[in-house]
């Protein structure tokens, strides 16, 4: 059965996200080393651990509260390009959920769209620029399309995760036009974008959280 999207769900997602950043951080840093400055995994790890710690101290009791709390921590602990982008995206997504104590899968879609808009606005990138957007956009589309065609939350998040993964992989042949990787010009071609990869890990954490709940 599909889980309820309440604060507890988002806290379980946060735990899964933090765990995956700890586990996969080195791979993200390695990707960032090829076309950036070799810190993306370190940044994500620091940010999600700070968020987990902060939230553990005073657990919010709404989905919006969790996302706003995580976003704020990322803004004030990560730095770099990903801190404000990730942080603002989650903060605005959380704000869009208001103070409902649980939300629908459709409300989550709107929140994810808000996140995409936040990243586009702040970073000025378009799809195809080889940034995190290249995983976010197809992922949110796939999620919405799945809901539209009658899928439940767990199934739709699985589709979102698969699309994010593909989107991240599809950054490999692209030449970067935003962020640090753009300095490399053509030499950025042939490497997967670290930010798109971490987005895929986060969406996958959503999907796994839902599936874990559903399997219980």
């Amino acid at each position: 059965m599909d889980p309820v999207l309440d604060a507890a769900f988002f806290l379980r997602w946060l735990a899964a996200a933090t765990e995956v950043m700890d586990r996969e951080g080195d791979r993200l840093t390695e990707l960032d080393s090829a076309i950036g400055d070799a810190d993306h995994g370190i940044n994500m790890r620091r940010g999600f651990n700070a968020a987990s710690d902060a939230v553990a101290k005073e657990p919010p009791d709404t989905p919006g509260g969790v996302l706003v709390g995580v976003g704020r921590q990322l803004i004030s602990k990560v730095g770099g390009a990903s801190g404000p982008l990730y942080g603002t995206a989650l903060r605005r997504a959380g704000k869009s959920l208001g103070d409902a104590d649980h939300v629908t899968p459709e409300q989550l879609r709107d929140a994810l769209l808000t996140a995409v808009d936040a990243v586009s606005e702040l970073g000025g990138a378009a799809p195809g620029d080889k940034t995190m957007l290249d995983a976010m956009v197809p992922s949110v589309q796939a999620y919405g399309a799945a809901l539209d065609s009658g899928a439940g939350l767990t199934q739709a998040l699985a589709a979102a995760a698969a699309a994010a993964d593909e989107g991240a992989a599809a950054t490999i042949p692209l030449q970067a036009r935003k962020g640090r990787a753009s300095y490399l010009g053509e030499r950025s071609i042939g490497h997967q974008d670290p930010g798109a990869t971490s987005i895929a890990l986060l969406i996958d954490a959503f999907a796994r959280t839902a599936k874990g709940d559903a399997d219980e």
Partner: protein
Amino acid sequence: MKMLINGPDTVVADALRGLADAHPELAVDTEKRVVVRRDAPVAGKVGLVSGGGTGHEPLHSGFVGHGMLDAACPGEVFTSPVPDQMAAATAAVSAGAGVVHIVKNYTGDVLNFKMAAELVEDDGVEVEQVLVDDDVAVTDSLYTAGRRGTGATLFVEKITGALAQEGAPLAQVAAVGRKVNESSRTFGVALTAVTTPAKGSPTFDLPSDELELGIGIHGEPGRERRKMMTAREIAEFSLDAILDDLPPGGPVLALVNGMGGTPLLELYLFNAEVHRILGERGVQVARTLVGNYVTSLDMAGASITLCRADDELVRLWDAPVNTPALRWGM
């Protein structure tokens, strides 16, 4: 890779303690991670704040003091600081005359400083941003995040610092900063990759007989890799790129800057080639600074920055400055 550290996680905090121990004339808040002139806020003076990832020392903390920055915010290694730091620094130096944020053009620095400006403007502090983007190695700004901010940061911080110290108003201080940036161009090369404490191994592989041309200061690979060249050839290649793009005009300020791992001896040697070539091309050098100022941890290599400087800029360059890394006239 061996480093003189206690562990990768405490590098920034430990180094800030050491900075505080060495420089009682600076107020170092190791919690908030801001380094402030002890006499800040200076009554009536425009405040000057900069910041960026740690790993470029002495930039920026080493440029805090009379006649230069009022505060610096060191981020994690090669990671821009967070808005909280910048907001705290801005508040600490604000004397009511407004504050200039000197921001190197990197997505992270720009975004975080922007968020910080929003925070402090809510508290009524007027902020002007001066963006530094002098690195000619990044050419096509339509398809990139724009030119990086590198060596010219030193010129911008020194010259805005001098003008602010004289009591000039906010708009004028920001304007001279923009003018310095527009008049400056930089090109850098690396002979080795950089190793960050967290990663512990070089950020890219550079064969022992090749060099990277057009590197940044964060261990990013450059635009082009070539077989190793002589100092003269490297200077020629770099100056070609710079002079191609530098606005025409009179004399220049020259910064021959080490990336951290290159001995001073080689920097002076490189400076000889720079001067020889500029002489051949009829470019007059008004002032020269040689040393490790805008670095990239242990990276071997160097950058050249030229800034076209009229009499006013030269005067402000010569004005008294008293910081850990730059000090003259007082």
